[in-house]
């Protein structure tokens, strides 16, 4: 999990229908799944039950059509298992088995659907998609360029921070302070802030990331 391998952990390369689908379409499909699942409380129990079950079946079908492994499906459910059991038990007790199944199926279907999107889209494409979402906000005062710069800075800082955690853990272990949360975290945070400050100074020295001064805002001191 060191370095950039961490950032591609979600992507599973392939050549399925979903891999070739445009990101915007995939996002729209995901939105449709979420709406279908969330709409069920507004229709009758029987209709909601059938819609959610059908959507869940379609999503599971899509999961395998995209060539994603079983493990991926199970892992997504496993992480929420305790909560799903609690929610199912409560709904069963309050409203009976039909509603319990419908609620659980809706959660699993939406989670699996967005898993498909994440697993079939490379990280760069997702980031490009984000950038294109921000661009129209320029009119209301957002600064897409500085936003992209910040995102890029964050991505390249993650390996540094993970490396700092690893170094500090080794140092703490050598001193027998492995279970001391303070000894494990304070040096990491100090190193991280120092790193942020040297990065900030380097950017400022190159005139990057500074707010574009509009003539009206410029102070005489500049």
């Amino acid at each position, binding site marked *: 999990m060191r370095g950039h391998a961490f950032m591609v*952990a979600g992507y599973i390369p392939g050549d399925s229908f979903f891999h070739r689908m445009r990101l915007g379409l995939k996002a729209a499909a995901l939105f449709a799944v979420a709406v279908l699942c969330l709409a069920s409380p507004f229709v009758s129990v029987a209709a909601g039950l059938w819609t959610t079950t059908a959507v869940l079946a379609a999503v599971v079908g899509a999961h395998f059509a995209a060539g994603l492994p079983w493990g991926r499906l199970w892992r997504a459910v496993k992480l929420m298992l305790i909560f799903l059991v609690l929610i199912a038990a409560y709904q069963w007790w309050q409203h009976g088995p039909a509603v319990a199944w419908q609620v659980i199926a809706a959660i699993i279907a939406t989670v699996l659907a967005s898993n498909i999107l994440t697993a079939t889209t490379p990280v760069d494409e997702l980031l490009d998609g984000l950038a294109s979402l921000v661009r129209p906000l320029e009119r209301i005062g957002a600064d897409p360029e500085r936003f992209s710069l910040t995102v890029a800075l964050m991505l390249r800082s993650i390996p540094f921070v993970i490396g700092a955690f690893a170094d500090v853990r080794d140092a703490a272990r050598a001193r027998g302070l492995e279970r001391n949360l303070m000894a494990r975290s304070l040096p990491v945070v100090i190193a991280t802030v120092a790193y942020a400050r040297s990065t900030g100074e380097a950017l400022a020295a190159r005139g990057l*990331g500074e707010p574009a001064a509009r003539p009206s805002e410029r102070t005489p001191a500049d």
Partner: protein
Amino acid sequence: MNEPHPGNGNRPPAAAAPARRRRGWNAMDLSLIAVFAALMAASVAIPGINVGALGVPITLQTLVVSLCGLVLGFSRGTAAVSLYVLLGLIGLPIFSGFRAGPAVLASPSAGYIIGFIFGAAVVGALATLAVRSRWRVAGLFGAALAGGLVIHVFGIAGFMVRGMGLQVAVLTDLAYIPGDIIKNVIAVAIALSLHRAFPDLLVRRRK
């Protein structure tokens, strides 16, 4: 003081926060926001640390959320946590358990993740007041506790939206409280060391 801060001493503290947004962040602010968001993301990759007699593994996630507020203040702290949440939502595997994408909004822990943003905002707003007050340590700890409370309220609301009853949701949430108090103590201790090491971090520098 190794850097001159012209005009910092007599600036009314209340005026600094609202003016900040309009004036915009400089490169240093962007760098701090980005690197603290990276710290949030990296803290997910760190396995939980077993603390003391409790034997409860403690993940660093909520610790870093309070830290963002305590160290960066209201606007930058909120921005750092929002950036982390946003990138997690578009699909980087940076949520706990290496989850990613809009899936977490559908999962029962969605409340906590949305709550992180508001928690950091509350911690940041209170911390900015606390560092200037006479009871700095107590104030910072109070800020961290208030932020933690906000996160838990969002977490419980998230459980309930997913169909859990109020009582079950509160009981489930209570399991996380002791660990969070330990984390808040540590976050304040770290923040105090950071304020000592970098005195101009929370107090806004002016050119």
